């Protein structure tokens, strides 16, 4: 509970009040609100300054724009459906049944969540490309036919690949509720003679449905916001989504206004769904978890556990093991498509990426720098705003809260459009420098730090600061010496989450980068465009390796719960 401080204390917090608060508040407004306002403004004014909604109407009038809109929806809905089909049974299996390898499945689902989906997409080209994809070749060889069974360069291919990387949202949401849920209702059903399957379907499922829906919403939004997968798999066959169409619109001659207008539906849909999740599901979900520490009842599946386990293993194989293995294989191969013999194996691709390719060296440095700075600044700003919101009674707190969580509702490409629009001219001419990327990364990921800090502060007993104040510490000192150390874990986990997601950021970077400011994902995309698939695989393996090391390290520091928030 925020409280009023005695008048005498005010002088002592001057440094916070007059320096840190204003800086943080101005930064937040410039970083988040200003670009968004500019984007909305850009979408309703022509370059000549005429007001109107024609750019929005174009979405329905121009066939190509409407097709992109429709494709996005189709992909989003089907990918979400597949996520439910995989995430829910898997969550139930690892949380409530006696199948073996539960931790293995949980961990690999985590890995799938931190895997950049566009790397998965590239790996799936090696597997399901109609001409040289390994699966297709294998089928032709085994059955001596000419048929092509799978074509990853299709809308189905995009849906499949996206589903493999967004199902963790459903899985993690569902599993965390199942893990913590009071199982007395299920026990009652069992005692009354319901079968295991009937209990699962009639009792457990309805109880976790809010969590499932909330996971499904996140999956849908992620599927809608992804740029890399449809770019890699769709554009070459003329399949565009909202995100890739926006990218296309920024080609020469760039159509900024139309791009901005196309980004607006993404923001609006995301906003509405998140609002729904927050207002409706958020409340319902918490009623269910009683907070009692009873162990959930484990269902003994008997022989049925083998097909269930098989299903789980299939999903993690398709999302992680097979694609990773394929990337590794290609990264060690001289030429994609050459037979896999010892003489075709080489470390040359790694050597090239690490020592001879300036773009990759530069982009490694840039990405490290940006991820480090973005994480640090975002955590710092978030901390100040959280203190402002939770420990003062100043005006505008709920407004600030809204601004801080707003970026959740802005897909990367839309964010990039906003930034491009806002920072290409005075007063903030950042375009063409690395700072526009930094600003975009901070703005995109600040909600992660904010949520993590905010949860932390809420849990800290206010009396601790109070007692420090009573024995004479200033308000600022009390916060610095009491609150911040107690928040350490929240701060670290926020920092790491931002670092990981910024390190491999593609959707915003692809529109905002410039010469010498290339980041890793841009380099991977460039290698893809140029057809250097072997070098690309080597770089991907390095990126995946670094990401996994970070995740593993942070789980050490912060505990297993880390990164279970989205």
């Amino acid at each position, binding site marked *: 509970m925020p409280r009023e401080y005695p008048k005498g204390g005010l002088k002592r917090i001057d440094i916070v009040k007059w320096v840190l608060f204003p800086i943080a508040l101005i930064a937040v407004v410039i970083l988040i609100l200003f670009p968004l306002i500019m984007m909305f403004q850009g979408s309703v004014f022509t370059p000549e300054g005429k007001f109107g909604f024609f750019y929005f109407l174009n979405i329905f009038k121009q066939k190509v724009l409407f097709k992109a809109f429709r494709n996005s929806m189709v992909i989003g809905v089907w990918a979400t459906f597949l996520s439910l089909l995989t995430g829910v049974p898997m969550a139930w299996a690892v949380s409530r049944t006696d199948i073996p390898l539960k931790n293995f499945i949980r961990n690999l689902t985590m890995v799938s969540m931190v895997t950049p989906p566009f790397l998965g997409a590239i790996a799936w080209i090696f597997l399901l490309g109609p001409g040289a994809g390994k699966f297709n070749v294998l089928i032709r060889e085994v059955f001596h036919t000419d048929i092509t069974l799978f074509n990853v360069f299709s809308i189905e291919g995009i849906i499949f690949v996206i589903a493999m990387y967004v199902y963790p949202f459903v899985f993690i949401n569902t599993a965390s509720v199942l893990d913590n849920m009071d199982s007395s209702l299920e026990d009652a059903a069992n005692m009354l003679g319901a079968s295991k399957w009937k209990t699962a379907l009639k009792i457990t499922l309805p109880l976790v449905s809010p969590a499932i829906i909330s996971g499904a919403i996140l999956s849908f939004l992620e599927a809608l916001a992804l740029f890399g997968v449809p770019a890699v798999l769709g554009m070459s066959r003329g399949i565009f989504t909202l995100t890739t169409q926006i990218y296309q619109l920024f080609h020469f001659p760039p159509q900024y206004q139309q791009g901005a207008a196309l980004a607006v539906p993404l923001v609006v849909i995301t906003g509405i769904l998140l609002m729904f999740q927050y207002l409706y599901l958020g409340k319902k979900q918490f009623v269910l978890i009683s907070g009692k520490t009873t162990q959930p009842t484990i269902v003994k599946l008997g022989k049925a556990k083998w097909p269930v386990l098989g299903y789980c293993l299939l999903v993690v194989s398709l999302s992680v093991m097979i694609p990773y293995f394929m990337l590794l294989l290609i990264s060690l191969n001289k*030429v994609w498509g050459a037979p896999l013999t010892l003489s075709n194996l080489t470390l040359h691709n790694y050597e090239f990426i690490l020592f001879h390719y300036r773009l990759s060296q530069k982009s490694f440095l840039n990405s490290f720098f940006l991820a480090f700075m973005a994480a640090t600044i975002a955590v710092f700003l978030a901390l100040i705003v959280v203190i402002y919101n939770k420990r003062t009674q100043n005006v505008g707190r709920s407004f600030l809260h809204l601004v801080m969580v707003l970026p959740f509702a802005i897909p990367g490409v839309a964010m990039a459009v906003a930034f491009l629009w806002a920072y290409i001219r005075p007063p903030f001419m950042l375009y063409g420098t690395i700072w526009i990327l930094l600003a975009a990364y901070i703005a995109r990921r600040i909600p992660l730090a904010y949520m993590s800090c905010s949860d932390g502060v809420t849990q800290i007993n206010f009396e601790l600061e109070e007692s420090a104040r009573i024995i004479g510490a200033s308000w600022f000192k009390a916060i610095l010496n009491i609150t911040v150390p107690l928040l350490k874990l929240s701060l670290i986990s926020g920092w790491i989450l931002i670092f990981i997601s910024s390190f491999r950021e593609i959707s915003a970077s692809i529109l905002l980068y410039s010469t010498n400011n290339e980041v890793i994902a841009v380099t991977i995309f460039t290698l893809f465009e140029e057809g250097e698939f072997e070098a690309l695989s080597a770089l991907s393996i390095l990126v995946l390796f670094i990401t996994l090391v970070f995740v593993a390290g942070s789980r050490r520091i912060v505990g297993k719960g880390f990164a279970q928030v989205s």
Partner: protein
Amino acid sequence: MKLLKKTGCLLVVCFIVFVFASMAHTETIVDKAKAEGKLIFYTSMDSKTANTLAENFGKKYGITPEVFRSGTGKVLAKVEAEFAAHKSMWDVCQVSDMAPFIEWARKGLIEQYKPKDFDKFFDYMKDKDGYWLAVKSNTSVIAFNTNKIKKEEAPKSWKDLLNPKWKGMISMSNPYYAGTTAVNIACILELYGWDYYKALAKNQPFIADSHGALQTMMISGERPLIAEQNNYSVLPGKYKGQPCDVVYAVEGVTLSPGPAGILKKAPHPNAAKLFMDYICSKEAQEIIAAKYYYPGRVDVPAKGQPSLGKLKFLYPKISWLIENKQKLIDNFDKIMGRK
């Protein structure tokens, strides 16, 4: 005799003075360039060639150009965006499309500069006023995977690509990204009109952004037939022993000169001039030829491919292309279901 000696001495002195004078001239350009210390080079050449040129230039003059490398379309988009924002960052730009350079020269956006060896370049490879000059040129050929398609069955002409038996096997680049593709399309349009591309669309071509990607997909067997490949993208593979070969279409091969020029009021004007001199030098042109481009110089022979004089060419109407490039891209995208 004395007179002869005197004249001889005078001549020698003159020569020495001349040499020193010209050295002093280059010295100053080199010094000024070094003082600028930096050079930004936008190009659509493949990264390896661009980097080799940049590194060699760096070794010679102590300035290693910063290279931005992408397809012609992306380079142009960047240049135009910078023009629009009045914030041009490049010194030297090179793409595979003459049209924008002609436009920029007309609008006074690029600098007039005749590099040292200007006279050594083919006439149709340069602007007579010295606004730009093509440091290399590409030809567009048909390329195929020899493991998947037998040489005698491979298409012989652009028209052969329309045969339904190639359905799902063809790839090509797109005219937005690749300057050479735009030129190639312009030439084929003159022969066959848009009906050609409507028919080609039925063969469901895979449309990649760069010719490098087409090559990778062709060698792997993913898309064994490339409807229009750059000579320099396919020939290195062929001579390295990869399963691929080239067809020079009977209707004629398209030629895309790749002009380079200096930005007006470039941030590093002297370094830019020095770099233009360098890429026009015999040394640089030989590097370019070794990468299977056609060099722009008369005195550097092409490598591993028939010399320009031995090929039948289709020439694009540049004035038409300048006016209609955007329309061409839009139409192509529409026909290929991309728009």
